[in-house]
């Protein structure tokens, strides 16, 4: 199970109506899934992280290069292979507020994909799968199922997306800021689950985050992005402990220390 970018890049615009041409992602090579691996992607907003995830998920067509699933162009896969790719590569979207259809109860978010991808034959058999997935992210099934998305808190919505993705047992999980809206304790619990999936179930994870402390905790390697380009990549400990680029050093230094006696420089003007 290998998901690859082959010199895949994305530019937007460049037509009369879409405004000036803008490069969101410079042509990039990347491979994930051949062996279990957690790859963290960090970088400032607008650096192209979400664009990268949309490429890997087949939601956005590269304007140059190709996205390959097991050696074949994702955009030219025959139906059965495409369906398998859709199951094997799951997503947790960045924004839990925009990702839900507000008119459906959350049950549907879990049971529909379970049925569609053949994990369950009926609503009844899908339900235990849904319940187990919810419990794994600290949600009470009895209080979550039956609700509409707006009846859940931000972190609960975010966890629901993680639960849905894990339920489908993907070989590659593309998670865009999956725990940015939950507290430190739950974050530890969910990351532990993802870490276990990598170590015990051979799942690979592309973990987009701006939280370098959690990237350090779980990732095997890191890529640092800026302005649509990868500016640094390597093994996690060396990238964080001995960054080669000043931009990476800035990212590490910008982490607020969870200690009020350390001056982080919020008061200074620069």
């Amino acid at each position, binding site marked *: 199970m290998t998901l690859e970018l082959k010199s895949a890049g994305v530019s937007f615009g460049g037509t009369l109506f879409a405004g000036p041409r803008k490069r969101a992602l410079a042509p990039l090579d990347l491979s994930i899934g051949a062996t279990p691996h957690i790859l963290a992607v960090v970088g400032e907003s607008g650096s192209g992280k979400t664009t990268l995830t949309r490429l890997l998920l087949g939601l956005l067509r590269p304007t140059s290069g190709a996205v390959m699933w097991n050696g074949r162009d994702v955009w030219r896969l025959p139906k059965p292979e495409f369906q398998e790719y859709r199951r094997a590569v799951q997503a947790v979207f960045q924004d839990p507020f925009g990702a839900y259809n507000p008119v459906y109860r959350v049950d549907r978010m879990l049971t529909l994909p379970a049925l569609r991808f053949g994990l369950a034959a009926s609503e009844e058999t899908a339900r235990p799968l849904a319940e187990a997935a919810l419990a794994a992210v600290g949600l009470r099934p009895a209080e979550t199922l039956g609700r509409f998305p707006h009846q859940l808190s*931000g972190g*609960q919505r975010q966890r629901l997306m993680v639960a849905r993705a894990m339920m489908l047992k993907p070989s590659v999980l593309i998670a865009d800021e999956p725990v940015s809206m939950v507290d430190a304790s739950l974050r530890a619990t969910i990351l532990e689950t993802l870490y276990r999936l990598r170590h015990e179930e051979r799942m690979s994870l592309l973990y987009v985050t701006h939280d370098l402390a959690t990237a350090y905790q779980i990732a095997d390697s890191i890529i640092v992005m800026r302005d649509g380009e990868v500016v640094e990549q390597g093994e996690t400990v060396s990238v964080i402990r001995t960054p080669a680029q000043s931009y990476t050093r800035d990212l590490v230094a910008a982490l607020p220390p969870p200690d009020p006696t350390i001056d982080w420089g919020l008061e200074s003007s620069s």
Partner: protein
Amino acid sequence: MSALAVRGLCVEFASARGIVRAVQNVSFDLAPGERLGLVGESGSGKTTTALSLLSLIRPPGRIASGEILLDGVDIARATPSALRRMRAARIALVPQGAMNALNPVLTCGAQFADLFAAHGAPGGTARIAKLLASVGLGVEVATLYPHQLSGGMKQRVCIALAIALRPAVIVADEPTSALDVIVQKQILKTLLAVQRDIGAAVVLVGHDMGLMAQFAHRIGVMYAGRLVELAFVRDIFATPRHPYTRMLIDSLPGFGARGVFKGIPGLPPSLLTALPGCSFAPRCPRAGPRCTVEMPQTRILEGGGEVRCHDA
């Protein structure tokens, strides 16, 4: 005189399975210019509390009881027209998931113009440019639509909108959880500078304990709808009194051993049924027999903190 006083706030949501008691008997005072951080487990009632401060709870939710006093007005019972005048001008909100709060069919500039017009405030291109600059955005953003911006840029527009009318209280619900650390720091500097400039008090809801440590004067910790601890930031980190606060701080990752996770085992209680004792008791390593039968009341501690725990 406090800038804002919250007394015995209770908020409920009617649901198919019964009443969800999202906020239960929350009280606190906000001094002028004070920065209060509100933290706690996901689903513990932080957003519900924050929205209540502007009376923005929508049916089937309601403020069941309690008072929210600002400028001598009880926001929990204010008329719709009084609320329209106060919101944005006296108390402003940066909502959770603010990036979806922007109107998709208006340019960012038009959203500022609308806000100024609604409050009869002087606006103009220069003022908008200045506000955008204060959150690190160029003036060209005024001509763009929300979908043309990255998530972080949208979030910055929302913050600029919240500070536009220089309110007395700014309620910010996870304003930077979608931003990278560098922008996050710029935004907090901005928020701090504006807050000082106009003397506004800030309620900052968030999960990043690092940010809280750096930004807040005091920290309130919520668990299952209740404020379980409220204390000065140094005391919260140095001597957390509530076991939940302690475990929350202990769960923070560091740059030491990797692959080590210290989440709190177990689930928070259902908000549908009221437990007789402390709501943290089922997960609390220090729980004794009294904890499961008797709800701890808020106790004032030496040094000005307060805690809801029999054992603290």
